[in-house]
């Protein structure tokens, strides 16, 4: 479980996050949603301590990452996997080398053990016989899956996904969403997904936080987000004509 308490963060005197508290639950896909500029990415970078918060605490099963020494933080980060918006695969490495990288850096596994783990991770994301390819030789959807394989290579307790299906067609996006959900349940991880895609929200949103102008405006589940009266949330959920028509039909 990851708990954030009263997080505040600003840049050059401009307050971006204004006292956010939330609990990301283990074994569930926790979503941070909101419009562009609402502070989702900054909040995520604060949670993984790429940004130092101005105030508040971020507890990973009771351990405050923001208050840790560099050594402790480094150890904790080996329990974290992250899927970046642009996949962030290392261009100069093959698919196999990308997935093997964290194992090489932080484990004492033999070459055979590493190879076995890499094959397991790649098979888990349904990538077969792609080990020797370079990221540039694969499609956007494949790159996301490789990034997921790399993220789970170290068997992390916490998984962060920043806009996991941006730039993907709807069908591939749903495949990625479901893959994230399945992996979360299978490995009992605390997964945090940052998105503004309503399809993702309705597909995998088990525990949702809605951010608006640096504040937590609402929290709930994919079921409750459809029925909520919170104005900012309904504006977000029913922004598209399709969703408005859907709502009218349901009424």
């Amino acid at each position: 479980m990851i708990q954030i308490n009263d997080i505040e963060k600003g840049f050059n005197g401009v307050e971006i996050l204004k006292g956010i508290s939330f609990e990301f639950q283990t074994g569930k896909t926790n979503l941070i949603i909101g419009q562009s500029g609402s502070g989702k990415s900054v909040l995520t970078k604060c949670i993984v301590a790429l940004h130092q918060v101005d105030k508040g605490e971020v507890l990973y099963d009771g351990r405050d990452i923001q208050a840790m020494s560099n050594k402790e933080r480094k150890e904790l980060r080996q329990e974290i996997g992250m899927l970046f918006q642009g996949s962030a695969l290392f261009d100069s490495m093959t698919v196999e080398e990308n997935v093997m990288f964290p194992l090489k850096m932080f484990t004492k596994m033999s070459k055979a053990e590493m190879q076995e783990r890499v094959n397991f991770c790649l098979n888990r994301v349904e990538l077969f016989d792609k080990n020797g390819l370079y990221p540039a030789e694969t499609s956007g959807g494949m790159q996301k899956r490789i990034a997921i394989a790399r993220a789970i290579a170290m068997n992390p307790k916490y998984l962060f996904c920043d806009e996991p299906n941006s730039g993907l067609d709807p069908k591939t996006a749903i495949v990625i969403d479901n893959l994230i959900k399945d992996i979360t349940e299978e490995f009992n991880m605390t997964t945090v997904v940052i998105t503004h895609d309503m399809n993702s929200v309705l597909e995998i949103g088990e525990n949702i936080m809605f951010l608006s102008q640096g504040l937590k405006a609402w929290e709930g589940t994919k079921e409750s987000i459809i029925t909520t009266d919170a104005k900012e949330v309904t504006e977000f959920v029913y922004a598209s004509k399709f969703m408005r028509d859907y709502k009218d039909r349901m009424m």
Partner: protein
Amino acid sequence: MSFIGRIGEYTMMLSGSFTKPDKLKVFWKRCVDEVMNLGINSMGIVFIISIFMGMVITIQTASNIESAWIPKYTVGFTARQTIILEFSPTIISLILAGIVGSRISSELGSMRVTEQIDALEIMGVNSKNYLILPKIIGFMFILPFIIVYSMFLGLFGGWLVGTASGIISTADYVYGIQYWFDPYSVFYALFKTILFAFVISSVSSYYGYHVKGGSLEVGRASTKAVIWSSIVMLFVNYLVTQLWLI
């Protein structure tokens, strides 16, 4: 950011880089890769420039000292002094500041804007140590070899054009390049070469590592990296020459 702020940021980057590597075996492999990327791949251009500059230095020297009072071997002597003291260490390093500097800066800049550096940090890898230190060590190791290679090629180019065009005989040229030779001048040249390698690799890394924005910024950072590494390198050259030879 102010100039002082940048120096502070550069110093912080260096202190973050010069730490114990996460995994020594991986680190040394990275150093060897950088020796190949930054050094061996520059050999071709160094070959061409050194040969032609050696030729030009010899012709220029010969055409400017046409006097019965000045012995022929002076051409070889002058070519040697020029090539060893300044042309190879300084001019070749300056050219490599453009080639290697922009390469380092654009590589790190691209990694920054595509979040590859963030990915390393999230995994718990010290990205400065993993990415920057191998470049600094690799380039400081290989540049002296490149410069010695350039010195030989420059002298060879001078001999080639001198004898082929009848400016000077082989005997005079060889006597000239051996005349009053002080090995200390080679040591001086290689010492400053190592400093230049440090300046080029670290200043370029600084601009690449701290890119903010997109591909446009990566291009701008590469330009700044080349400009500033050249300026700092020339200043260091002046400083070393002033302190060492005067």
